[in-house]
């Protein structure tokens, strides 16, 4: 065989091999969709869920998967308002009692009926220290769950807790028999629009439409979540048509490129998280409020949002999110202002007395370390950019980068000066202000302390009137800025990119994917 003929055979073989599978017959379409729609939605997920037991889960990936399989008493809509789901209605006769009327005729995927016992079991187990739920402490305000009748359940609280609906009642309900089922955390059973089929670890999770779903049935028969950790591969898979939907984290360059491509729809919206510079108030240098404020004025938030994040995220102003009902324009932050920073440093006694370009005081150089972690490229870029603007203002700034467990171990022990990290899922301001910034909170690692701030956030979680709560949070946010407790640098955006052939998908600021049940993709 001569070389040319061999090359010809080889190429033909490769083509035949590469085309194998392309001509497979399509599997039957869903009952709800037929004809020109695909029978499978392929989703590119960045991180694999750790467990699919909603009570043990702690990551948004798990939420994205089990929210297709399970329902909760209450859902949070795109406007972040609680709406009925398995609970048809609820009442709050006094500040310590919540009564939920449950939907009747709902069945779990194994055919058993959903009732109040399932709700009680779900909430009793997540609060049980022996069960080992990661977020058990978030349910601490619930003291008892009482079954009034099969379709009425009463929650008795130990103290008033305003975010109860949006944080606690969104817990997916599992069957009362869940803990007797072998491998429930690998193969969850719920009442949701999709029935879980298989989890192939490190590879994919598959589910199919629930024909007996109590609500509007899923429009596409099969749903497959593919675990694709590498951002570049996830985007390439979308472009190659191997997946129909991908989401952040994605590089700003990829997002901008696909925004120009008519084959894709890029949904960009404000997320529910922040990137922050957390000051350690126990460090001698940072005990001086003027120094903290000067450093905050040296963080160029506008450039970070426009250049590092390519306009996808917004410059930060306060600990309240612009999308929140608690937001107010009256709370002012720290715009980039090197002149003001210089004046504040001078007022605090820091000047370049020896002309070496570094500010000093009593013979000591103004040195500060910015600490962040490897798992987030954007935060590393932010830390480096901070170093740049700090240095040009005469601050000897160093960047320290650790991997996440080392970083959080150090930060939680107070071994840091300025830590750059994020907060997510801030549906209610209580999450950040009460849990992290209150002086007695175990997660207040930087030692911020303001009696007035504490009083405001403690009061705000106990009243139900949202406009009253908003006023309290706005006051607390202003105190946070006046005292420079933390500096919010950028509000996180959320981006989902899908094929232009996909219809019915609505992005959610929290990154939830409940609308996948309405999604279809043209063939």
């Amino acid at each position, binding site marked *: 065989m001569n070389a040319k003929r061999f090359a010809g055979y080889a190429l033909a073989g490769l083509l035949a091999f590469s085309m194998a599978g392309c001509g497979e017959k399509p599997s039957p379409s869903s009952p709800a969709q037929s004809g020109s729609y695909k029978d499978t939605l392929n989703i590119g997920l960045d991180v694999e869920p750790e467990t699919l037991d909603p009570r043990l889960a702690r990551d948004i990936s798990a939420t994205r998967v089990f929210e297709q399989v399970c329902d909760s008493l209450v859902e949070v809509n795109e406007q972040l308002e609680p709406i009925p789901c398995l609970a048809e209605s609820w009442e709050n006769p006094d500040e310590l009692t919540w009564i939920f009327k449950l939907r009747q005729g709902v069945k779990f995927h194994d055919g058993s009926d959903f009732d109040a016992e399932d709700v009680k079991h779900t909430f009793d187990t997540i609060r049980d220290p022996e069960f080992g739920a990661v977020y058990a402490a978030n349910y601490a305000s619930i003291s008892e769950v009482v079954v009034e009748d099969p379709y009425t359940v009463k929650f008795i609280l130990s103290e008033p807790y305003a975010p109860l609906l949006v944080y606690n009642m969104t817990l997916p309900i599992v069957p009362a028999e869940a803990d007797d089922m072998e491998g429930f955390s690998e193969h969850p059973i719920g009442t949701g629009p999709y029935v879980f089929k298989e989890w*192939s670890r490190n*590879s994919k999770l598959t589910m199919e439409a629930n024909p007996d779903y109590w609500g509007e049935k899923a429009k596409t028969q099969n749903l497959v979540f593919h675990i694709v950790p590498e951002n570049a*591969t996830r985007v390439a898979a979308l472009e190659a048509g191997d997946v129909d939907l991908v989401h952040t984290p994605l590089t700003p360059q990829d997002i901008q490129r696909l925004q120009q491509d008519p084959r894709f729809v890029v949904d960009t919206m404000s997320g529910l998280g922040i990137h922050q510079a957390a000051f350690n108030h126990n460090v001698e240098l940072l005990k001086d409020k003027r120094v903290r404020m000067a450093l905050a004025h040296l963080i160029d938030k506008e450039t970070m949002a426009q250049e590092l994040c390519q306009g996808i995220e917004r410059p930060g102003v306060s600990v309240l999110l612009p999308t929140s009902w608690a937001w107010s324009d009256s709370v002012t932050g720290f715009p980039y202002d090197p002149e003001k920073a210089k004046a504040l440093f001078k007022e605090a006694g820091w000047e370049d007395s020896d002309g070496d370009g570094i500010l000093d005081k009593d013979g000591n150089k103004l040195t500060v370390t910015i600490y962040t972690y490897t798992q987030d490229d954007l935060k590393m870029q932010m830390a480096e950019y901070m170093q740049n603007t700090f240095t040009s203002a005469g601050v000897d700034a160093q960047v320290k980068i650790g991997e996440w467990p080392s970083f*959080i*171990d150090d930060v939680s022990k107070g071994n840091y000066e300025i830590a750059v990290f994020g907060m997510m899922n801030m549906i209610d301001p209580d999450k950040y202000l009460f849990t*992290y910034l209150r002086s007695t909170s175990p997660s207040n690692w930087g030692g911020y302390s303001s009696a007035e701030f504490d009083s405001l956030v403690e009061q705000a979680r106990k009243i139900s009137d949202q406009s009253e709560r908003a006023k309290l949070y706005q006051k607390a946010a202003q105190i946070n800025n006046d005292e420079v407790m933390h500096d919010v640098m950028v509000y996180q955006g959320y981006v989902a990119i899908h094929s232009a052939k996909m219809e019915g998908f609505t992005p959610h600021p929290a990154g939830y994917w409940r609308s996948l049940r309405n999604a279809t993709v043209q063939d």
Partner: protein
Amino acid sequence: MAKYIFKRILQIIPVVLGITIIVFFLIRLIPGDPALALLGTDATPEELARTRARLGLDKSYLVQLALYLRDIFTLNFGESIVQHKPVMEIIGSSFPATLELAVAAIIVSLVVAVPLGVLSAVKQNSWADYVSMFFAQLGTSMPVFWIGLLLILAFSLKLQWLPSFGRGEPLAEAVGALFATGSAAPLLDSLRRLLLPAVSLGVMGAALISRMIRSTMLEVLDSDYVRTARAKGTREGKVVLKHAFRNALLPVVTTVGLQFGSLLGGAIVTETVFAWPGIGRVIVTAIFQRDFPLVQGGVICVAVAFATLNLLVDLLYAVINPKLRA
């Protein structure tokens, strides 16, 4: 021979034990608290303490080590802190994927490297030699991450010939399906998905192995017995393949063995780029989560595989070189 194999198997035990102890302490000495990594930043000190006690991390290191060694002697590698599953089950589902990829990558390496290496030695200082070695140099210089992305861009995105990521049915199961049902579709799908990651990993190995073959072949081709064979009038093809190549194989087998061993534990980059569900990704994720039992179990598994591979390489030496059989 049997005695030799038995002796070599016995030698694996202290190696694995040593690695177990080193990994046990290393993972505990790096900063990072598994309870904090598990519970996250919202956890209270009470919850953290309770979790440490539940995981047995409140005991002294020596007590923890003694308990762990006791358990692994009964082949109980514990349960993953994060996944709440037996470690052996997780490894059992991910190691075959890595093995499959490593074998495919080595096949790609050899298919490319052997002809290139032999050709460039036989045609030393010719254009064929320069071109082969240029590609060998290129292969060793290009980062595997970059090769992977280029392959995806070319074959998945532009040409749309091959899938961009993921693994099909395990090859063994796909072959089983072929015999059981007569359907070749699962096998073809598995092979199509295997091709890009195997090529991206194999290119680097090919570069290394072809350079090794070239240099050892050059040495052998210059030796007395090759000159004698040629003087006897043996055909050049036979001289090259039987007399020279076989004798040049020993160092090549060592390189291939080492390359294969490193692929078993170190294909993490390729596994990540192609979303290949192998053990490299499992171990690295476990390190980031401070999932001690899974890190320990994963490393022990890779160590045992590496030691077994070394044994096989040594046995292969004996097959290739009769002098070593004594």
